[in-house]
């Protein structure tokens, strides 16, 4: 009895852990892994979704929001099961100045390199090109409210390829923006209104062997053998954007935007309180008539065998190369590679920029919110749609 009591007392004095420290809850603790659901809630635009090699994360381009450096376009990665986003290409985006505007990420077939487009703009509030502009032909159209100030100059575009863990580019090439001359290149309005929310039309797409990239300069498709100093225009791709190289390498799907009128302007830009222009601009404005209507097309990499598959934008291939998923009339559709058997994917209102994971199980896309002002990246399980094939 005595021994029992003593041993009991000794046992009761066993040590315990230190008290829990003050800590905030894990914000994603209570969010179950979704079968389908929303990935991002950014109040600004999230674009250009693309899958990582293991199909568990989505790369995308976003205008920055609290928690990230201020930039017109960040390349981020968000887990497929939702969670915190992280910067891609840390060395390029973290603690650098000026912060680059990046968009349209595309992972190489070997999963090690990322192709993306960097745009450089200058925003000089003292330079006014619309208020004090002198134009030789006609006044330029008013900038769209969501395109930023009219005095923002898009001065450069570069297609870059960099290893995911690299600190320097493996290769890069300048994107020539036709219609811009002299000392400034005006982004807004520019060509087909290349606003922030449509910069993704430059989207590069890798050849299956990873040696070439096809991309758009806004007016056509170009083929670039990675590492070379120049790109080759693909014939018969006028007004071609959003290229997508088929998995077997045979064809390139793309969207041909509708061209309406072309106007030419010769303008002067003035600095506030300065009588003489500080710059003169010669500008060609390609107008799509205010509508985003594109024709889904395919073409061989050499510019032959152009086929039009009907209305459709931002095409994406299934990994087996048998189907295309694309946006049509603000919804996503699936069709065979020749455009036939087009089927509406339900519950994809306002969705576009579809991307299919490499394992073929998941479809991600960006969605223009019903309100029309908050596109965000959504994810839906692709198996809902594969069954029908």
């Amino acid at each position, binding site marked *: 009895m*005595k021994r029992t*009591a003593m041993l009991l007392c000794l*046992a009761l004095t*066993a040590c315990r852990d230190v008290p829990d420290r003050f800590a905030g809850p894990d914000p994603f603790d209570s969010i179950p892994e979704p079968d389908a659901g929303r990935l*991002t809630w*950014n109040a600004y635009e999230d674009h250009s979704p693309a899958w990582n090699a293991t199909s568990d994360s989505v790369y995308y381009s976003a205008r920055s929001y*609290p928690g990230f450096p201020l930039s017109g376009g960040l390349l981020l990665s968000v887990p497929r099961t939702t969670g915190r986003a992280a910067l891609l290409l840390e060395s390029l985006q973290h603690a650098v100045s000026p912060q680059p505007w990046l968009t349209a990420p595309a992972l190489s077939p070997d999963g090690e390199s990322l192709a993306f487009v960097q745009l450089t703009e200058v925003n000089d509030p003292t330079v006014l090109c619309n208020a004090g502009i002198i134009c030789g032909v006609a006044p330029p159209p008013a900038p769209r409210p969501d395109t930023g100030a009219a005095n923002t100059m898009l001065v450069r575009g570069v297609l870059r390829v960099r290893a995911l863990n690299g600190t320097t580019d493996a290769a890069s090439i300048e994107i020539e923006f036709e219609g811009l001359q002299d000392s400034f290149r005006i982004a807004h309005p520019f060509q087909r209104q290349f606003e922030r929310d449509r910069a993704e039309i430059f989207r590069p797409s890798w050849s299956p062997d990873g040696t070439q990239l096809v991309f758009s300069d806004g007016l056509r498709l170009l083929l670039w053998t990675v590492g070379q100093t120049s790109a080759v225009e693909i014939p018969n791709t006028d007004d071609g954007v959003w290229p997508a190289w088929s998995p077997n390498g045979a064809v390139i799907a793309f969207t041909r935007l509708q061209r309406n009128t072309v106007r030419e302007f010769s303008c002067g830009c003035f600095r506030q309180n300065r009588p003489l222009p500080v710059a003169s601009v010669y500008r060609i404005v390609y107008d799509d008539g205010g509508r985003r209507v594109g024709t889904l097309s395919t073409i061989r990499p050499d510019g032959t065998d152009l086929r039009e598959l009907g209305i459709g934008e931002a095409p994406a291939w299934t990994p087996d190369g048998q189907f295309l998923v694309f946006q049509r009339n603000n919804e996503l559709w699936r069709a065979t590679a020749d455009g036939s058997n087009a089927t509406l994917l339900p519950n994809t209102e306002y969705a576009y920029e579809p991307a299919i994971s490499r394992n073929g199980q998941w479809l991600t896309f960006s969605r223009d919110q019903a309100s029309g002002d908050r596109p965000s990246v959504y994810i839906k399980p692709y198996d809902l749609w594969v069954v029908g094939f």
Partner: protein
Amino acid sequence: MLPGLRSFSLATIFLLTAATGVAAQTTGSIIGRVVDAQSGAPLVGADIRVERLPHRVTTGPDGRFVIGAVPPGERDIRVEHLGYKSLVLTRIPVRTGKAAEVRVALETSPIAVAPVIVRADRERLIEPEISATHEVVVGREIRELPIDAIEEVLELTTGVSGGHFRGGKVGQEIYVVDGIELKNQLEASRHGFGLELSPSALEEVDVITGGFGAEFGSALSGVVSYTTRRGNPDRWEARAAFTSDHWAPESIFRGFTGLNLSVGGPLRFLGTGATLFADVLAQGMLDADVRGRGLTCLTEEDSSDDLAAAITALRTNPTTAPLYCPYSNGVIPNQRGDKLIAFARFDKPLSATWNISSSVLRNRTQRELYTSEFKYNPTYQLGQRFTGTLANLNAEWLKHTPKGSTSITARGAVMRLDRYLGVIDPSSFDGFEIGGFRPASFDFLGEDFARQDILRQIDAATAIPGYVTPGGVANSPFGTAGAGIFYTEGTPTVASWSRSDLYSADLAFARFMPTGSVFRGGTAAKLYRVETYERANAHLPGSTPNYARFFPATVATYAEADVQTQDGMHFQFGVRVEGFRSGINFQADRVDFLSPIVETSWKISIMPRLGAAFPIPGTEGRTGIRLNYGRVAQPPDFRYFLDSTIGDSLRTDLRRQGNPNLAFEKGTSYEFGASHLFSDRISVTVSAFRKNLENLVSGNLQLGDLGTSGRFSGGDFGSVKGVEVTMRARWTGISARLGWALQTAKGRTSGSENDSTIVGQDPAHTEYPLAFDRRHSGDIAIFLGRGAGLETPWSAAITTTVQSGYPLLRDATGTGVSPREVQQYLPWTSTTDLRASWDFGRVFVCERCSWRVVFDGRNILGMKNILALRRETGALSPTLQQVQALANAQPVSPEPIPRESPAYVEFLDYDRDGVITQQEASTARFAAALDRYDPTLFFGEGRQVRLGVEVSF
């Protein structure tokens, strides 16, 4: 029951334990007379020895004897005379500075027989011969009390409450360790003694609150005399005790673990009487400052109406409710700490007249310091470490003759007190740890840098290594809404340390007369080497530290006579002369570099002390009266010589210019007391006292003549007066002591002459209640069973302290710098502790081992004691406007925060739409500000329940 123990029934032996002259040093004496039991004739040449001590005398022609310089404690004496039965008288209570008187009647015995053993448990309940006011707790009681630190014993003395002795400021007391006067002379008023002894290493604690003798100086309000234990010269004894609450359910788990080891015994290889005693106390604490409420959030009842309404709105809305009080664990983290006290004492008689003793004491107390702004910082917390080392060597010459005993004691001591406050290196918590105790000392970020040569440090012009500007929001539950309210990254910014080295030597003389009179004299000198360092913005490369190194000194000499007359009258005459110098020369005007240099001089104080005590004639010693008068003085804390920062609970830190030319803080004390023994079981002692204090260093926060920097001055004065009642009671197996003190402490602080709130009075001579003006304080200590001297397997000790609150010194100006106006007193507080043990005897391991189970409960009634309130509101909470001001100190980002953002925190998005809007962020920011204003620091000790095991042999 001891073999041979008889009940005390014959009128053959009387134990009077009559006491004389408290003023005392570290020893007491035993005086008495040995007579023939039949004839009453004095026995000449009877041999009297103190068991386990070298003290030995023979009776003189009248049968009288005196054994002087007996260490305090419960002593046994053996009385032998040829032809008589030997007698062992046990548990004679020898008190410091007192003479325990015994009368022994021996019965004849023609043959040698075993000695008769008689227990002298008739401890006197009153001491009508003593003029001082004091309280003694003996080692047997200390080891039964529910205490973790010896300071808690002091709180059981009538008139001592919250570290204040009789309404004095903290630090106005002196500590005496085995006769050596010690004090944290650098910063006693801020950090107390700075050195701690293990309760189990003490033979006796004597707390003197009034009428202390000329032997004691450097104190205005009290003397605490510790007498350490010495090893048993007959056999080795040991005790191990382990106590913990780690078994406890979550609601009362506080994370305490204590281990105490004591061992003592003879070192026979060094000769007869050589002994060693060693004691180690290790305590680990996961929550080093257990608070009453255990929560870190404001409640409606803590708050004013408008803030309460805001809290209610936050708390009752289902969507915002998670924002309120996100941390409600009963144990507060970031409060880890531990304590280590190691003590060893060596004693050896060199000859019949020479004894030497030496002891070494080593302390280390370290803990995290909880601060609400860093509570969500997962890595860096402020912490503090105290280390103290004391080594001393005593040599005593002692001569016993039938006409008296004479002792001359020479003592030398060195002491180092070291304090470091800074940011704890998180790796400190990676090493070995058990039950919250870490054998290794905390590492502090950049401590080596901060302690290096000051000129090299300034030349380096860098931040203290490891210090980083505080900021960040990552770990706060409020996410970005906590920006600038909580610092989840970076470090606290302060680093400070102080080191005080003391070299002390003193010589003491005492002559003990058979009549009980004692004559004493002595002289002492203390040399200091003091270094202080403070760097408020240690994270900024350009910031410079405040550093000082200086060499103050104190000297003292005293003479005293305690005279006891034949009819029991007792008179005490003494005088003490004390001096000090700061050792700092300084510029008269800090802002004028052409001003003259002031050379500081020695400051001298002469302190006469008188006392008288006598029994009322005709009461047979059952009623006594006592009187005392004394001048007291103490050097001010050395920290006042230096520039420093005065902080208060509102963190309205102000810079003060040091003043090395400060003089003694002085006082005059008067006391009248009476004691009456109602029966053999109950006594009552009443004391009335008044103490006038003058030349106190100003603690006032009034703005000085250098903008935010005034100079410390000595112009404050005050008075403390009060009445104390102490009742002692004793029955078989029960002893109890109840004390009550009613007192006021008022004073004038410099700067009050500028107080526009004083109307119709001369502000320069208006006294205010002082910050420590606690009117009522009561204490109860009840011992049951073994603790009361009964030979039982069980023992229990219950202690209760009850006290009224301190005055709330409101800031009438609203500036936070002139907090004098008293608008209310804080509420009463009380704590009841209980320690009970059961002795199972031998259970396992060894034949001689005795095992006990211990239950140790603190604040067992769970009182939620409020110790402080906010000065600006008189409540636990700030105003609604203050919370809003903190919330609005940084604008809320207008940018919505999406769920995928690193800045997103789910429960700030209380509508769960995946985006934290500006409105949601504003609400969260208010909640964060509310959480920052947690009232945790204003509560007293929380409930704790521990279980333990003790084994001894």
